């Protein structure tokens, strides 16, 4: 009993860790198989793990609602890049501008604050109204998800820059553009990249939401079609694909973040 608080934080040996991890994984898969086999629900509602993996591979080679899984993924990713790129292209310069100009700050902040609390997904009706089922709708939703973290982090990162550097730059007669690009921007890069990670996550997730409602291709659309025909293994394959791509995006940005903070 005594000293348990310390004991419980002792590192496990490699073997213990491996055994427990394997136990945990097999308990999960075992329970899943068990539930699927005793037939609490028909198989179309709860396929076995193996069914899902098989479905994942068939979807990768055979088209489903117009495209293979990778086709849908490519279409989703294309939208993601456009929305995310737009958010970065507007958010970073605007954040820097707000940090250097009180006027811009005063104008943008209230507009931004009133829009920020609207969940990105709530823009879907306007997205549909303005862009139909075209490319613009999902891009708008991703933008709404990805934009706030980029702007906030750029702004905060620039605000933390030591005033001395700014004063030096201004007194030496640097233009606003040069202060933004040569003083604020380099100093704010770590904060900006941290913001990019958050906004990529939010953007990817908003995209999936948008595709569930207003799209005619993409992984989200594929899942909705699977849902409508009660094809649970297709829905689960979609979740798997979304999870993997989201994870890859995050790993990529984390590598960039590590590289940036090492400098």
């Amino acid at each position, binding site marked *: 009993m*005594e000293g*348990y608080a*310390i004991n419980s934080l002792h590192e496990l040996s490699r073997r213990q860790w491996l055994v427990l991890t394997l*136990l945990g994984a097999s308990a999960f898969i075992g329970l899943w198989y068990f539930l699927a086999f005793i037939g609490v629900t028909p198989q179309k509602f709860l396929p076995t793990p193996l069914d899902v993996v098989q479905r994942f591979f068939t979807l990768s080679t055979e088209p489903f609602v117009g495209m293979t899984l990778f086709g849908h993924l490519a279409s989703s990713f294309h939208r993601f890049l456009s929305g995310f790129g737009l958010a970065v292209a507007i958010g970073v310069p605007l954040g820097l501008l707000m940090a250097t100009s009180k006027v811009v700050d005063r104008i943008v902040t209230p507009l931004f604050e009133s829009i920020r*609390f609207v969940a990105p997904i709530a823009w879907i009706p306007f997205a549909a109204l303005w862009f139909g089922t075209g490319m613009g709708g999902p891009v708008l939703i991703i933008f709404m998800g990805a934009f706030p973290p980029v702007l906030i982090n750029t702004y905060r990162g620039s605000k933390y820059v030591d005033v001395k550097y700014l004063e030096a730059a201004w007194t030496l007669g640097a233009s606003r553009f040069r202060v933004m690009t040569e003083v604020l921007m380099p100093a704010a890069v770590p904060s900006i990249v941290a913001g990019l990670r958050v906004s990529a996550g939010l953007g990817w997730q908003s995209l999936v939401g948008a595709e569930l409602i207003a799209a005619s291709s993409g992984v989200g659309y594929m899942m*909705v079609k699977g*849902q409508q025909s009660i094809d*649970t293994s297709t829905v689960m394959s979609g979740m798997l694909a979304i999870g993997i791509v989201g994870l890859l995006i995050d790993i990529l940005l984390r590598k960039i973040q590590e590289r940036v903070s090492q400098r």
Partner: protein
Amino acid sequence: MNAVKNILNVLVSVAGVLLVWLTLTTWTGIIEPNRFPNPMEFWVSLKQIALQGYGNGKLHQHILQSVILVTTSFLVASTAGVTLGLLMGASRRIEAFVNPVFLTLRPIPPLAWIPLAIVWLGLDNSAKVMVIFVAAFVPSVINSYAAVRSIETPILEASAMLGIRRWLHWKEVLIPASLPLIFTGLRLSLQASWTTLVAAELIGALLGLGSILNQAAQDIYPAMILVGMFSVAVCGWLMTVLLGLIERSAMPWRATP
């Protein structure tokens, strides 16, 4: 003095936003009325839904439906999530056992669970409870876990050396030290729950703020779309403020910023 200044600032900002809005719609017509409503249309629609109702209910019925659903599911999910997170933080064995499942499910965004929830549970409340649960669970676990792990070892060693009992160790050391990060997790959980619920209601619901959006989109009724978005934002904001108040009263020893 500061409070007065803050209120004045807010009033000026609101007036500014209204002014920009009026200029773009009513006065110059840069934005066409069938694309985005002007303030007058917004007001008329707000009155319509509050007094006569729209899409199966009046505004307060929609709000109650969404807010009650989100609060109860959020409470259940975050209680479960915080408990699991604390356990994972306090014991390496539990962490090793749970991690493979948790790490697999974690990258799947909450919104991606909606189709599965509909397949399993249909369009009624239980499907929404399921997606809110998933949305709120993950951030609670991650942050409470990180909270326990970030407690400095000397504190744990001191409490162990003094021969503290197990439940007192939790009550007096682990949980209070973890509270700040736990609340960070709760705030993320609440935001995720709210977004997910709105999305789920957009896809299929008879009542709720998301269903206003869906109905208004089908009727091509821009002013009502804006009323829906406005209500979503105000409710989300109010819940965040409320959680902030709870956070402050839960940790009286922290200096208020």
